[in-house]
C-alpha cells in the first residue's frame, strides 16, 4: 500500500476549525457591540463604535458606553469564557459530560463564602466589596481542594472526584440554606440577589482581575492541550502515552478553582454556561483540545453575552439577574443536547 496516497485528516480539519473559531470571535464582537448598544436608552451601533474608538461620540453616549455598559458587557464575555473553560477542563479530566464547577459544588462553595460574608457583615475588618469576592475565591479553592482530596483518597479515579463533588454541592447548599435561615431580612435579600448572579456588579478594576486570571490560566491550559486530548481517550490510555494523569488532574482542577473563583467572586453563581459551552464547542470543533480550549472559552463568552442581551430585550429597563436568563435558556438547550445525543454518548 502506498503511504503517500493516504489522506491527512488531522491537517485538513485544522483550517475549517480555525475558520470556525474566527467566526465565533466575529459573532462575539457583534454580540458585544449589541450588548453595549442595548439598554434603557438604545444607542445606534455607529454611536457605540464612535464612542469605543474615541472618534467624536456625544458626551452622554461616551459616558454610558465607557462608564456603564462596556464594563458590564465585557464582564459577560470574561466570566462566560472563564466558566466555559472551567467546564471543559472538568468534563475532560473527570470523564463526565455533566461535570462543571456549577454541578460539582465549586460554585456553591464560592456562593457560600459570599453569603457568609454578607451575614457576618460589619463583624469583618474588610469592606464587603473586598470581603465578598475574597471569600468567594477562598471557598471556591476550598471546594476544589476538597474534591481533589476526596478523589485522591479514593485512589484517584475520575468517578470518585465526581461523587465527591456532588456530595460537596449538597453540603454547601445545606450550609447556604442554614445561613439564609439565620440571616436578617436585609442580609437574606442581599444573599438571594447575589446568588442569582448579576453582571451589574462589574467595574474596570474587577474586569482587570478577571482578565488577569484568564490571561494566566488559558496559556497554562493550552500548554497541556495534547495531554488533555490524550486524557479524552481514557485514564489508562493517557498513562500509556506518558501522561502523569494524577498530576495533570491536580493541575487542571487547581486552575478550575482559580477560574471559578474569579467568575463567581464578581458576578455571583451563574449556572449552565460551564455545562453547555463545552458541549457546543465539542460539537463544532471536535476533540482536539488545541481548538477546543479556545473554542469553549469563546462559546462560554458568547452564551453569556447573548444571555445578557436577551435579558435586556426581554425586560428593557429592568435588571434581570443574568443567572435567571442563563438557566431559562440553558435548561431547554441542555435537554435538546441530551435528546439529540447518540446512545452511550453520556
Amino acid at each position, binding site marked *: *500500500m*502506498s*503511504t*503517500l496516497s*493516504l*489522506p*491527512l*485528516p*488531522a*491537517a485538513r*480539519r485544522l483550517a475549517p476549525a480555525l475558520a470556525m473559531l474566527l467566526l465565533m470571535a466575529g459573532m462575539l464582537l457583534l454580540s458585544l457591540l449589541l450588548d453595549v448598544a442595548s439598554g434603557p436608552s438604545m444607542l445606534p451601533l455607529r454611536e457605540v463604535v464612535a464612542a469605543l474608538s474615541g472618534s467624536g461620540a456625544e458626551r452622554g453616549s461616551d459616558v454610558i458606553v465607557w462608564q456603564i455598559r462596556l464594563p458590564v458587557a465585557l464582564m459577560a464575555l470574561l466570566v462566560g469564557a472563564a466558566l466555559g473553560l472551567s467546564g471543559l477542563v472538568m468534563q475532560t479530566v473527570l470523564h463526565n459530560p455533566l461535570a462543571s464547577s456549577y454541578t460539582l459544588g465549586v460554585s456553591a462553595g464560592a456562593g457560600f463564602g459570599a453569603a457568609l460574608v454578607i451575614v457576618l457583615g460589619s463583624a469583618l475588618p474588610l469592606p464587603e466589596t473586598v470581603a465578598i469576592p475574597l471569600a468567594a475565591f477562598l471557598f471556591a479553592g476550598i471546594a476544589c481542594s476538597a474534591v481533589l482530596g476526596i478523589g485522591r483518597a479514593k485512589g484517584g479515579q475520575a468517578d470518585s472526584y465526581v461523587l465527591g463533588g456532588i456530595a460537596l454541592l449538597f453540603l454547601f447548599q445545606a450550609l447556604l440554606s442554614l445561613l439564609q435561615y439565620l440571616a436578617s431580612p436585609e442580609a437574606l435579600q442581599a444573599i438571594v440577589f447575589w446568588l442569582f448572579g448579576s453582571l451589574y456588579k462589574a467595574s474596570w478594576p474587577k474586569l482587570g482581575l478577571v482578565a488577569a486570571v484568564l490571561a494566566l490560566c488559558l496559556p497554562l491550559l493550552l500548554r497541556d492541550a*495534547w*495531554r488533555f*486530548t*490524550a486524557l*479524552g*481517550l*481514557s485514564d*489508562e*490510555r493517557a*498513562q*500509556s*502515552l*506518558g*501522561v*502523569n*494523569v*494524577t*498530576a495533570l488532574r491536580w493541575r487542571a482542577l487547581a486552575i478550575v478553582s482559580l477560574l471559578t473563583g474569579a467568575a463567581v467572586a464578581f458576578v455571583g453563581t451563574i449556572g449552565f454556561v460551564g455545562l453547555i459551552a463545552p458541549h457546543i464547542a*465539542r460539537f463544532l470543533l*471536535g*476533540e*482536539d483540545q*488545541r481548538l477546543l480550549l479556545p473554542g469553549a472559552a469563546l462559546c462560554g463568552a458568547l452564551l453569556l453575552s447573548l444571555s445578557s442581551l436577551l435579558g435586556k430585550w426581554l425586560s428593557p429597563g429592568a435588571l434581570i439577574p443574568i443567572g435567571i436568563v442563563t438557566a431559562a435558556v440553558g435548561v431547554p438547550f441542555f435537554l435538546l443536547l441530551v435528546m439529540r445525543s447518540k446512545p*452511550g*454518548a453520556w
Partner: protein
Amino acid sequence: MLQAQQLNVSLGRQAILHDVSFEARPGEVTALLGPNGSGKTTLLKTLAGLLPARGQLQWQGQALPLQRGGQLHAACGYLPQDCSTRSRLSVTEAVLLGQLGALGWRVSAEQRAAVQQQLAALGLGALAERRLCELSGGQRQMVFLAQVLLRQPGLLLLDEPISALDLQHQVQVMRSVREQTQARQLTCVVVLHDLNAALAYADRVLLLQHGRLLAAGPARDILTPTLLAPVFGVAIHQAHTASGHSVLCPHGG
C-alpha cells in the same frame, strides 16, 4: 535488556506479586502466561512504571524508578488491555498522540507522515478518517497498537493485544509485533492467553501463578503439557502437525 530482580507489588494490603525475577532480551518476544488473577497485568504495569513496587528494575543497565508509579518510563511503549473509549477523535488524530511528547501547536509534515506509515504498516490506511467510537473493539486495538509503535519504544509491553481480534487480525498483529521486535531490536513482553500464539510467536515464556514466577525459559521448554496442566487446571495435549509445528489443546477439546 530488561532485568527485573525480586519485584514485589501490593495493591492496598493485598500482595499481588512475590519476588519476581527475570530477564527479557532485545530482539525477542517474551510471552507472559498464567491463569486469570495470576498477576500478569500487574507485572506488566509495574514494568511500565505505572504501579509502585519494591525490588529492582534495570533497562539497558540503568535502574528504573519503581517506588512511586503513575508515570510511564520514557523507554516504554505500553498497550493496555482495555480498548474501550467514547472518544470521537479520528484514527489519524489518535495515532498522532503516540508522539505526544514531541507534539507542538503545529503538527509537522514529518509527524503526519510517520502516522501514515504506521497506519499503512498495520494495514489500517482505510480507517484513517474513521472516528474511534465507530470502530469495533478489534479495530481499536489495532489503532492503539499503531499508536504505541509510533512512540518508537525500546521496551514494548503489550497486555493481551489479540484477545479482542479475529483470527486474521490476531495473525497480523502478532506478525507485526514479531517483525518490529526483530527489526528494531525491541525488548517485547506480551501478555497472552492463547498458548498456541505464544508457541508460534514467542521466543521466551514467563509462567506466572498466584503472583509468583513458576517457570521462565525458551518457549518450547516451558510450553509443555507437564508444566502447563497443573497451572491452568486442565489436562493439555501436545500434537504435531505434518509441517512439524506443535499445537497445544486441552484434552477432549
